């Protein structure tokens, strides 16, 4: 999964990465009252990461990110479950939400915030993690890289099984380059 090898594209992509993420944050925060929400924001962030991966390459992105997106998803799920379960400690039903009104906050004025936002952040993290992980793994495998690095293999599969990519490597080179046909 490589994008066009153009300096302009690379620069614009990096710039867009921040722009899209600011937009995603905006979608996430306003979700409760205006169009937006964790799911959409998560998808937007995932798309920004995919864009970045096209620009700088997956291996470089992996180096920059330093963590497994699945952990992000796991953290999100934990956050959502904890948000849901926390009221049970105070004898309230599962997933009951609470909110507060903040007034006179500098620059913003008054606004409402509550546990739905925390829950939504959980959803956001799950969507980002899941979408990125799957697409990165698939993308790597079409580039004749291993879909998962060695330490991850132990995490997601049984030890008796062999990763599929090793087999692809030992095969003789096919005539055609099996990446996605680019626009070029």
């Amino acid at each position, binding site marked *: 999964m490589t994008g066009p090898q153009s300096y302009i594209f690379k620069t614009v992509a990096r710039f867009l990465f921040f722009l899209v993420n600011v937009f995603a944050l905006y979608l996430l925060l306003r*979700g*409760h*009252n*205006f*169009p*937006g*929400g*964790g*799911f*959409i924001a998560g*998808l*937007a962030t*995932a*798309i920004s990461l*995919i864009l970045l991966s096209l620009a700088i390459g997956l291996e470089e992105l992996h180096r920059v990110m330093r963590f497994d997106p*699945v952990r992000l*998803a796991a953290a*999100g*799920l934990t956050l959502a*479950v904890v948000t*849901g379960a926390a009221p049970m400690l105070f004898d309230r039903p*599962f*997933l009951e*939400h609470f*909110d507060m009104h903040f007034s006179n906050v500098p620059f913003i004025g008054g606004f*409402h915030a*509550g546990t*739905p936002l925390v*829950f*939504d952040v*959980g*959803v956001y993290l*799950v*969507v980002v993690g*899941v979408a990125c*992980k*799957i*697409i990165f*793994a*698939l*993308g790597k*495998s*079409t580039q004749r890289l291993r*879909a*998962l690095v060695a330490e*991850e*293999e132990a995490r*997601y*599969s049984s030890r*008796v*099984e062999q*990763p*599929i990519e090793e*087999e692809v490597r030992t095969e003789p080179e*096919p005539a*055609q380059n*099996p*990446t*996605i*046909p680019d626009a070029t």
Partner: protein
Amino acid sequence: MELHGINFLLVLGLPLIGSPLVALAGRRLGRRSGWLALAFPLISTAALLALAGGIGLPTRVVIEWPWVPSLGLGLSFLIDGLSIFFGLVVSVMGSLIVFYAIFYLDKDEEHQGRFYSYLVLFMGAMLGTVFSNHLVLIFIFWELTGIASFLLIGFWHGEADSRVGARQALLVTGSTGLAMFVGLVILHQIFGSASVSELLSGDLSSGKHSVLFTVAMLLVLVGAFGKSAQFPLHFWLPNAMAAPTPVSAYLHSATMVKLGVFLVARLYPVFVDHSWWAPLLGLIAFTTMALGAVLALLSHDLKAILAFSTVSQLGYLIGYYGLGPPDGVEHDYLHILNHVFYKGCLFMVVGIVAHAAGIRDIRQLGGLFPRLPLLGVTTLVAAATMAGIPGTTGFLSKEMMLKEIFEAMRARDELGLYATACVVLTSVVKVAFSVRLFANIFLGKKPEQVKQDFHAPSPWMQLPPVLLAACALLFGLFPGLLDAPFGALAVEGLNRPQHLALWHGFTKELLVSSLVLALGFGLYWLGEKTNWRWHHIPRWLRFDVAFEAGIEVFSKFTKVVTRVLRSDQPLDYLPIIVTFFVLLVGGRLLWQGSGLWGSLALDWGTVQPLRTLAAGLIALAVVGVLFLRRWTAQLISLSVAGFLTCFYFVLYRAPDLALTQILVETVTLIMVLLLLARFPRSAQVGEERRKPVRFRRVFHMLLALSVGGVATVLTLMVTANPHPSPIGRGFLEHTVELAKGSNAVNTILVDFRGFDTLGEITVLVIATLGCLGLLMRYKRTPEEYQQGPHGPPGSGAGEEVRE
């Protein structure tokens, strides 16, 4: 009440919590984890005794914690004589067995933590079953004991015997347990209460005449017979002896297999006056008893002999309840306790002998008495108990049983006669194999192999069997000691405790007993004379072989079905699903007939130009998919249709939907492109358009058109007849007031339907993990796939080879 609750938590909760702890600690402790595990049965025993003293027997106390109140399901436990009796058997035997296992398992045995963890889990499950007051709770713990038993039988899972034995045990006890569950649910339906204490004390006469009551009784008995290995389901028990000996001694003789007996006893007052109760229990149980005894005599493996004799004894116990009078039986505790004493003891002895000599075949053993004098005496006592020689609890048990069946012979003609014949036959055979068990292990001359391999066992290991044998002897000589505890443990409607005495005078029973002993010794002498040549289990009695064959046939059948229905290409499945949809939904629409066409009348005046334009563009993009040649182009065209749908959503003022649609469409497009590029075929051959056969093309076209037609008609119908009270309106109205947010879509997602969302993101994460696992899968080459050693994947062939 509060104190009882805490006591009870120590009895039941501690083992259930402790089981995973033992497993965790086992990694570090290794061999010493047994000492940690020993704490749980000891604490349970102590707490149980305190509990028994605290509630003041023979009262009945119910301890209850709410669990799922909306389903009427509570953690409700019934503490009475029966449950305390069984609880004590379980926890005391548990202590002895864990102690024994510490010395039994080899020093270098791996996974000891896991072993003890299963044992403690089993003990917790057993205690849960016997104390449960709720019918559903009984079932849950019942199956938990089955699972623990499966894990323990299969503990040495490297051996094929263990795996087969574990599977048989799980299948038989698990499936019969399900039958029992149905029976218990029916009981609940009939009497309107799932509480055992209410069933026992309430007035049940109203529901007892229905057919359903009979069905419930039969199903419950199926469960009891499966667990207690009654004919014709008895075959799993001997195969379960592949487990380590402490497990056999604990689960498969002393406790778990007695659950069937327990269930029969527990529901005895409910079922006893049913006219089928006595004949059914009598016939099956006494048949099992006689058959088990004969099979025990025909076996050579030490553990098999004991296993079949356990089967026999279980028949004896259940049959005893079967013949009991409606107001309660007299000596059930004695029979159960007697069996626990001698069978637990003998199993442990056999384990020690097999450990010391390395042989389990009785024909190759002999002359061990000088080497193991203490064990020899112990075995002598236990075998005497099994044979029913005066001075042991076995004698008391047999005397009482004979008395009972002589009474039954008067009360019920044919059944009583059958029972008598079975009991006498069983007693004779039992004497013979008891003598054989002792004499052929400890007496005679020592074979060469035994001389070579013998190594002395730890003296500590001999302590538990010695204790059990001592109990059998003590209570056999002074049966009056048992009067007080049995009196306290008596349960109304089940027990009528009687005074026990060693000497009853010169009665008919004593005469029969003496005859039985003489005949039994004669049978043994006959066997020795003929060198046990006639000893093998005939093929038609090998039920386990038939069962395995049945399983084999079933798995072949499923393979055939799978091969016929299965295809490598999703393209083969899709037409089937779609055709089904068209026929079902389209057929239903046509069936409706004339009313249909009226609702489809279009009002051309409401057509809006902008929407029409968007719809037309979508249609154009879809048509493009049909005529474009390369799959990338097709995909992009399809995704253009998707993006245009967003436009449509915007026209309907649904910004959330539009946003979601755009983003989902983008991510999906990238993902599908990657996926298609990843498939080996498209990766290697590149884009290649498959030219389908003409017939297929026409068929697919027709199918596509009819799906489109059905969908159109459905849409028109739904818009023509809107739902009178759509659910969305309520959400829209209450979103600010209840969820404190003005975006109803989002408040539905995170608040009103937050639980759904939580479920969805959980599924997302699980699906991702599954995908990653799939990405790792080893893919076979075509040659390997067709004639490789493993056969086609998933067929199960060659599983052994892989190991």
